[in-house]
């Protein structure tokens, strides 16, 4: 799963959906792999408006990517910024670890790149 996934998911527990603490879910013990993919500048520029930037900055920082500016870059992006975003958003996959809800503390396991959001019976 790509890091940007956390921009569009939240805790599967119904009561957490409206809690600001549940977003973004936090990675724990995440193991990352880089997969080389062709740089597509247009794609990076196009998806920027679709990104909730503060949440991405927070998630990226927790994984050791600390070069993102605190506000979303606008206008023309320099070459280095495009490269950094390509590495972070397109080439980096989380292959194992956990995603943790900041509201209920429930942990969702990630195994072979697939996060499991099925809840135990008592939480459904």
């Amino acid at each position, binding site marked *: *799963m*790509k890091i*940007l*996934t956390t*921009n*569009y*998911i*939240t*805790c*599967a527990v*119904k009561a957490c*959906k409206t809690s600001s603490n549940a*977003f973004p879910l936090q990675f724990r013990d995440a193991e990352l792999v880089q997969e080389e*993919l*062709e740089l*597509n500048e*247009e*794609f990076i520029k*196009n*998806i920027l*408006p*679709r990104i909730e930037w503060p949440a991405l900055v927070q998630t990226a920082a927790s994984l050791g990517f600390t070069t993102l500016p605190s506000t979303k870059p606008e206008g023309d992006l320099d070459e280095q910024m495009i490269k950094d975003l390509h590495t972070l958003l*397109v080439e980096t996959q989380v292959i194992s670890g956990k995603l943790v809800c900041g509201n209920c503390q429930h942990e*969702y396991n990630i*195994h*072979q*790149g*697939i*996060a*499991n*959001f*099925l*809840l135990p*019976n008592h939480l459904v």
Partner: protein
Amino acid sequence: MLPTPDTSHIDPDTTYEPNTDSYLILDSLTADAPFLSSRFKAPAPTPLILELGTGSGIISAFIASNPVTLFGRPDLLLLGTDANSIACAATNQSLKITPNPHLQLASVTADLATPIRPNEVDVLVFNPPYVPSPDVPKLGKHEDGYEEQFRLLALACDGGADGMEVTRRVFEGLGETLSARGVAYILFCASNKPDEVMEELQGKGWSCVKVGDLGKKGGIEKLTVWRIYK
């Protein structure tokens, strides 16, 4: 006709194999490309596509392979869920071998859209378990290997009463799942009584347009695909 994605890597003992219903969704999306292209025309932000119950991943892979033909733009973001983690792995593989693996965010194991943030999804695609059955299989894993295989395949097919129990749960959350510009594409069989279902949805303010159908038996269309939106 657009080429059908390669899903030959899937294990049909544990993952639903692409079938007539899957292909009908591919054709329906293709037929509805003018609508999609106009609704999501750039410079509107990149559409987020969510497929529920991806199975082999053939539908997501088809979308990822043809963004310009279907949406009139090269940029999409694709998410998929399936209650069967083996199907999630199959979906990942199907996406990986498309020309555009960069469009896929993740395939996650989940009950429908339960972990998806509210009002983020621009296009929801669902080939549901639509076959009427005495009950819908449980989401918890079965210890016995044979029983587990049986459960996984039943998850992809058994839709409970009228074959509608799972689809109804999607409808209940549809307003919360879709964005303001959101559209859902959902497949029905004749036993689902789609005409009655659409009337009900229209009563709740949804627009419903039939975008695909296949095979008539005694005047009744066996399979149909509907675009449901506001």
